[in-house]
């Protein structure tokens, strides 16, 4: 599903990583680990089309990312990418269900169809009964499960999670990882989990380590 070919990125004269190449199959969850500053988040941003690589290409379902066109990247992201952030990033003024519905609204899904899909996504992460609540009233674990529901509700082909358990305690982290893994399997998306936590990495099907400017299987 996801295929990364010879990616390279540097900051000024200092190369961050080079010749990075890997693939992620549909329904596979891959963990990307590495030291702080090794370039994990930058690599994730490139895969999401938020940053440009200096060299190389990224293909999703056989199509190359249009790095040169910011507008096209936004539209591509809207249709094909789901995000889970460390800080949840739920809009505080929307309810749980409205937050989850946001990608559907952006993609122009009719309102009649939206309700069912939002409910299904919330049910699959165990948050359906909190649909009417505001994010400010949720615990960290609950908020992150809502964020996972939002990331998969529109059926993305790529699910990117950046330190999704970084703000959670162990029990909540385990629950979130379990949810994330099962959602990747259920949706058939290619999942990439950026983490520095060995526990989180262990939840993935495969672990890649970014170290010394190169990517290798851990």
């Amino acid at each position, binding site marked *: 599903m996801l295929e990364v070919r010879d990616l390279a990125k540097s900051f000024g004269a200092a190369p961050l990583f080079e010749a990075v190449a890997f693939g992620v199959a549909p329904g596979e969850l891959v963990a990307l680990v590495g030291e702080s500053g090794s370039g994990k*988040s*930058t690599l994730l*941003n490139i895969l*999401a089309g*938020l*940053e440009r690589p200096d060299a190389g290409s990224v293909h999703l379902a056989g199509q190359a990312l249009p790095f040169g066109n*910011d*507008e096209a990247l*936004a*539209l*591509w*992201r*809207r*249709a094909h*990418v789901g*995000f889970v*952030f460390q*800080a949840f*990033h739920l*809009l*505080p*003024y*929307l309810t749980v269900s*409205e937050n989850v519905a*946001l*990608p559907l*609204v*952006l*993609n*122009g899904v009719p*309102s009649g169809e939206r309700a069912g899909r939002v409910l299904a996504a919330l049910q699959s992460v165990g948050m359906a009964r909190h649909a009417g609540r505001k994010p*400010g009233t949720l615990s960290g674990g609950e908020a992150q499960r809502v964020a996972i529901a939002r990331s998969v509700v529109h059926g993305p082909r790529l699910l990117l999670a950046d330190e999704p358990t970084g703000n959670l305690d162990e029990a909540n982290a385990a629950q979130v990882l379990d949810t994330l893994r099962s959602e990747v399997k259920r949706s058939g998306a290619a999942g990439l989990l950026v983490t520095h936590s060995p526990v989180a990495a262990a939840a993935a099907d495969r672990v890649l380590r970014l170290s010394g400017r190169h990517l290798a299987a851990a």
Partner: protein
Amino acid sequence: MNASVLRLVLRGSFAGNKARLALTVLCIALGVALAGAVHTLHASALAEIERAARALSGKADVEIRGPRSGFDEALYPLIAKREEVLVASPVVDLEAPLANSPGTLRVLGVDPFRAARLQAGYVAGSSSANFTWSTEGLDASNAWLTPAALARLGAQPGQTIALRSDAGDVHLRIAGVLPSLDAGGDAAVVDIAAAQERFGRVGRLSRIDVRLRPGVDAAAFRTALASVLPPGVVASAPASIATRAESITRAYRVNLTALALMALLTGLFLVYSTLALQAARRRQEHALLRALGVTGRGLSFLIVMEGALVGVAGAIVGTLLGLAASRAILRRSGTDLGAGYFRGLDATFAPDPWALGAIALLGVAAAAAGCGVIARAASRLDVAAALRDRALDVPQQRSGGVIAAACLAALGAVLLLVPPVTGLPVGGYLAITCWLAASVLLVAPACRGALQHLARVRDPVAALAVAQVRHLPGHLSASVAGIVVSASLCVAMAVMVHSFRVSLDAWLQGVIGADLYARAAEEGDTVRFSLEQQGRVAALPGIARVDARQYDRLAIAEGAAPLTLVARPLDATILRGFQAEPAEPPPATSEVPVWANDAALDLQAWRIGDRVTIPVAGRSIAVVIAGRYRDYSRTWGALLMDLAAYRRITGDSSASDLAIHLRDRSQATAVSAAMRAALPEMGSLALEDGTSIHRRSLEIFDRTFAVTYALEAVAIAIALGGITSSFAALAWSRRREFGLLRHLGLTRREILRMLALEGAATGLLGALIGLASGAAISLVLVHVVNRQSFHWGMEVHWPLAALAALVLALVAACAAGASWSARAALRDDAVRAVRDDA
């Protein structure tokens, strides 16, 4: 960006910032309301004048109008017999003082048979069922009143009204009401012969209204008539008095509207700072939307829509407020806003929907434009970085500000050279806009420069304040920009008004040379001092000298404002008092020297030394423009002529005013009493000493500018409201920082002091930049806007104490506003605040 997303995000955005958005809407509304109310009052006044003029002129195609003193009625048969003319109606139009109460009444002397063919209202609706002009209409003691006049006088048909005239009091019986002239304003209609005889106008006419035969071209007729008409009599389109009123008051009205719109401009910066800070707070939210696939353009659109919606709300509220305010003002005190142009005019509420729509649109555009810069910055957001950071600062222009400011300043300087467009200082207004924009563009570089040179401070609280200001240069720039705009305008207006007042004061000291001034009547044009009466006054004990003055209104050209001729004794002392250049009368020659005021020179394109012809008493008189003089009492053309020359030309030895020099100034009261006793027939005699006239003139000046001060106060209030609101939002965003500082041992009072220092620094920077920018703009107001709008020349005088007070007040208000706005944020428990992740 589809409508559903827009709705979803806007709903949240508005729901989360109710108080601040309400304040922003209110500020926009205030700007729109002020401009709308000022415009509505003036539009109502002009509509009333036009309605009155049209009601009285009826079906006339052309009006032939002469000077104030009128013209020979021999012209009438010449006009009436012309083959192009279907009917010509002669009119005597005069303003007579009321004998038993203050004020005047317009008296229209008409030939009922002819007037009725132009305007049926002159005979319609008489109170008497079997009314006939031959018996009642031609009775010299009868008058028919318009409903407005009847209401103002509180009179009833059958009662008698008394009016002042040279020939003594004129008593007229109210024979009836003319309901069809309801729109004609305040007037009494009498038979023309009665008007001529009883008001000393025998053989004179004021106007001839002409109805042309079908197919005759009115413009061609007016052109053909030009060679027939005596000097000083012009033919123009009917209701040209309304056009003239529109023209004479245009500069004043536009200036006041421009000032009101400045409040709107201040509102623009408030919208900018409110939404910029909001955008800064919502940086992560915007980054999330971008991460979820909203395009940069979509995000810009969203932000501009927010601004536009704020503008729409403000425009709607403002328009309604403006309408309500103008209606209330009109009902309570009429349409005059202090300058006296529309004093006493009982106008009907007549809002101009197109103009109000345009003002409302300006409000929306101002709000949307205020968001444009933010939208641009937000569309270029570094999404990945923004998702990680929790920055609070307002995006700011990094480069190019100084160059753009220099270009705008240069463009403004070039615009100063643009001549007035239809009497309006368009170039001056545009130059002010350019210089304001330049000063705003200079704010960010100036703030950066100031921050670089900010000295190290030892006081820990002050050091924290300095660090905070350094940390948020964008917020500092946005807040300072809001202050700069309002401070610039206030400084500019303060300097202009002060310069004007000082110049006026000096001018009054020069022109009010006599101890006592006598006017034949406070208002109106039917009572004058005869030569014999002047002699009686001069012969009174205690009077050293009496200088007579006479005035005339000279019609120079069709559609142009008339020129006032002031005839009075002229010598070097009087000319110096008028600040004339040169102030010495020229050597006596056969030419008649006149001094033209700045307006006459500007409007007639005359130069000193020009030999020109002016129409005086029905004759073309060659005069030489001997010099210029300053005249703050007229915004249109005026000429000073020596009284002896005027009397020689006109043979008219009467006088409207007398300037009386006493042997002993302390005897003014006794001399006044003696004058009244010596002139028992002059019931309308008005006496006032020079000091009182001086004081009253300054009071009128202050009243005229009271509305200016009010508009300035609103602009300052809007700016301070915006700054307080912006500091409040920032304080709310800094709850965690405050919590941390509390954890570190700072007291609430110390944190408030820190915020007050931040506010004071912002206020000081804004006030200083505003001072510099306002000083430059004041020069444009004094030398370009005033000169081109009102033709007033003046010197610049700096109100140093007032400016220092303004700077101090701004600094204090900003400090207090910043400190006060943080109180709510500091009420939170420190521990909770530190953990708060909102």
